């Protein structure tokens, strides 16, 4: 086995604290090293979380390049989906080109159970911000998030059961097929044997808002309904942040669990994993279901934030956008995907437009850069795959895997 020189003997524990943090004064460094290992590892994430938590308070005083709080909500929702997709693609190594289907499933679950869509019935359960006489099903958004996750996970299992037997590229194609069928179904679903399920191209809008209800509002001053609250964006932002942290936490814990190790084993060598007694189908289906679960929650949350679910949101391009986040950050690396996701979502929402403007000013000619956003993502994907397939923040194990090539079958040698 031949390792590239830069990897030989330079494990994470080879020289603890020697070449890193050399810039700190010795006393501080000594104090730092006296801290127990778990504390040290938590300091940086905790600091970031605190910074993120107070973002709405100091966002106004930041320079214009920083995103607004409303934009940040969208960025976080897409990052959450990318973390969910990372479970499927990064951990289990199943290329899913139809993740947008899960996003759609989550959004429409919210739209069905928290809007005026089904006017045949009137059912309220913990809904806030609307009159109790409003027709349609209105369930509390907090419950909807769970329902959407569960519903999407079931959808993931239903899609996965027949298709996960297929390997690699065939699976990618099948997921792509579902990613094309579901948006079309949604667009045409306003007349399924006379029943209006999805309200066609108009989408379903408005969707109820999350909130804490009037009782809590009177008691401790939290808003009864986010949409109607004065500082709407910041409440949506804090909720999104909480959901993202939960997703990241679950993702990290899952990776280190028995199931997570089984996923990685399948990713590295499916045949060997099966020989070691890992039930392939069940393990892969779990990856699908859990990945779908987070996609569904993110989709439902985004739908309540936008107060609508529209079929034009669910195009194949979204799947590729999410895949690009995972690849940029590093397949399998949770922190990498969070960084990659936030970065790309920022580019998509504001960054490209801003870069485009300064670029146009520079050359004195107007160029509509956001129009070419998918060309930029395509370029990122290709460049990353060619020059840094491990991603910006590689997962240690994945890096080794790509360097040593645990796949003994190269592209060429696979034959019938």
């Amino acid at each position, binding site marked *: 086995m031949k390792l590239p020189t830069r990897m030989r003997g330079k494990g994470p524990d080879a020289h603890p604290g020697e070449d890193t943090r050399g810039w700190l004064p010795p006393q501080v460094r000594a104090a730092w090293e006296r801290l127990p290992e778990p504390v040290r590892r938590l300091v940086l994430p905790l600091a970031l979380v605190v910074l993120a938590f107070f973002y709405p308070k100091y966002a106004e005083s930041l320079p214009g390049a920083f995103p607004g709080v409303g934009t940040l909500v969208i960025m976080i929702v897409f990052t959450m989906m990318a973390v969910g997709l990372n479970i499927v693609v990064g951990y289990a*190594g199943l*290329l899913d*080109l139809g993740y947008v289907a899960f996003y759609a499933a989550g959004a429409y679950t919210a739209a069905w159970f928290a809007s005026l869509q089904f006017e045949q019935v009137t059912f309220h359960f913990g809904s806030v911000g609307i009159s109790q006489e409003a027709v349609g099903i209105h369930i509390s958004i907090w419950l909807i998030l769970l329902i959407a996750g569960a519903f999407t996970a079931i959808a993931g299992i239903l899609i996965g059961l*027949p*298709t996960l*037997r*297929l*390997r*690699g*590229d*065939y699976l*990618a*194609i*099948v997921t*792509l*097929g*579902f990613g*094309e*069928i579901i948006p*079309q*179904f949604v*667009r*045409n679903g306003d007349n399924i044997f006379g029943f209006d399920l999805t309200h066609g191209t108009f989408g379903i809008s408005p969707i109820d808002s999350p909130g804490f209800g009037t009782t809590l509002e009177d008691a401790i001053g939290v808003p009864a309904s986010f949409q109607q609250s004065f500082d709407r964006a910041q409440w949506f932002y804090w909720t999104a942040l909480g959901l993202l942290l939960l997703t990241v936490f679950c993702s990290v814990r899952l990776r280190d669990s028995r199931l997570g190790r089984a996923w990685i084993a399948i990713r590295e060598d499916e045949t060997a994993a099966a020989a070691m007694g890992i039930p392939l189908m069940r393990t892969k289906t779990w990856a699908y279901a859990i990945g779908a679960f987070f996609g569904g929650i993110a989709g439902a949350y985004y739908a309540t934030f936008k107060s609508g679910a529209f079929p034009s949101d669910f195009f*194949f391009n979204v799947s*590729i956008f999410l*895949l*690009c986040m995972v*690849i940029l950050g590093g397949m399998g690396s949770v922190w990498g995907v969070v960084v990659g996701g936030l970065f790309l979502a920022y580019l998509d929402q504001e960054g490209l437009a801003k870069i485009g403007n300064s670029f146009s000013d520079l050359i004195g000619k107007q160029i509509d850069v956001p*129009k*070419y956003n*998918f*060309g930029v*993502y*395509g*370029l*990122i*994907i*290709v460049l990353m*795959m*060619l020059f840094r*397939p491990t991603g910006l923040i590689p997962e240690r194990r994945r890096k080794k*895997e*790509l360097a040593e*090539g645990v*796949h003994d*079958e*190269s*592209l*060429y*040698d*696979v*034959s*019938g």
Partner: protein
Amino acid sequence: MVGVLGTGFVLLLLIWVIGNFARDPGEFLNVLLIGLTNGAVYGLIALGYTLVYGILQLINFAHGDVFALGGLVGTTMILTVLDLSTSDSALVIVLGIAATLAAAMLFSSALNTTIELVAYRRLRHAPRLAPLITAVGMSFILQNVGLIGWGVNFTSVPRLVPNSVAFSLGSVDFQWNKIAVLLITLPVLLALTYLVQATRQGKAMRATSQDREAAAMMGVNVNRTISFTFMLAGGLAGAAGVLYVLNFTTIRYDQGFQLGLIAFTAAVIGGIGNMAGALLGAVTIGLIEAFNEGLTWYTPGSDWTRSIVFGLLIAILVFRPEGLLGERTPEGQ
């Protein structure tokens, strides 16, 4: 269980086809002709997928966009370089189309070969998903090249091959543009078959697709053979692009992706890696689309065409991954 369901489904389909035929035979045959023409264009694209898959086991997602760029180059040839219009004499138009075909094929060949050289060749020993993901990225890059070069709107050309009726057999109308598509497709297919079956280069291709290392040991220049395959596939895509433009007179930068997916479905239905299968699948898809959009008796209609095509793709991959004519592959087990 699956067998019973499958047989039942095929029976229902047969009843549906016969029922439609019985209601209006003339209309049915006209729709059939549309299906065959579209199937021929899909076939040219599908062959490109199949050739590349046969030799590299790679789904070249960018192939559909090579097709679209070929078509766009064709429009530039017709509009700017040659400045053809419907008032030109028939000979000028025929020669102009021939020149357009040649230019588009040359361009697409060069483009496809370059893609392989720049992107896929470096990833030959990477895990299998790496080239696949690269191909998806490449597809988006090519789409944006089309967007930069030809803009967001449809590029239209004059209807050089008229869609007037050339001759009628019974109630079936043979239009010039449909005849032209079939007239161009057939020689291309014959030439391709000859190339793959009867020449040294074709033998090298077949050898490389069976076992690359053994082929290399027998003195086949594997790299050159792969480049040649990409060149061939690109040429077919370019020809398909020009045919598409002649048949529908408009094309846009993002149409390649859709058509590419449909053509890929055709290749899978026939059995990917199998050339006759790709054609069979392409004609099947062409017919399904035409029937669904043209017939009237219990037909879902054009809103559902894509769902039906991709539903078929999923059903084939799940129940018969080797396709109609293919052999079992490791993927299918």
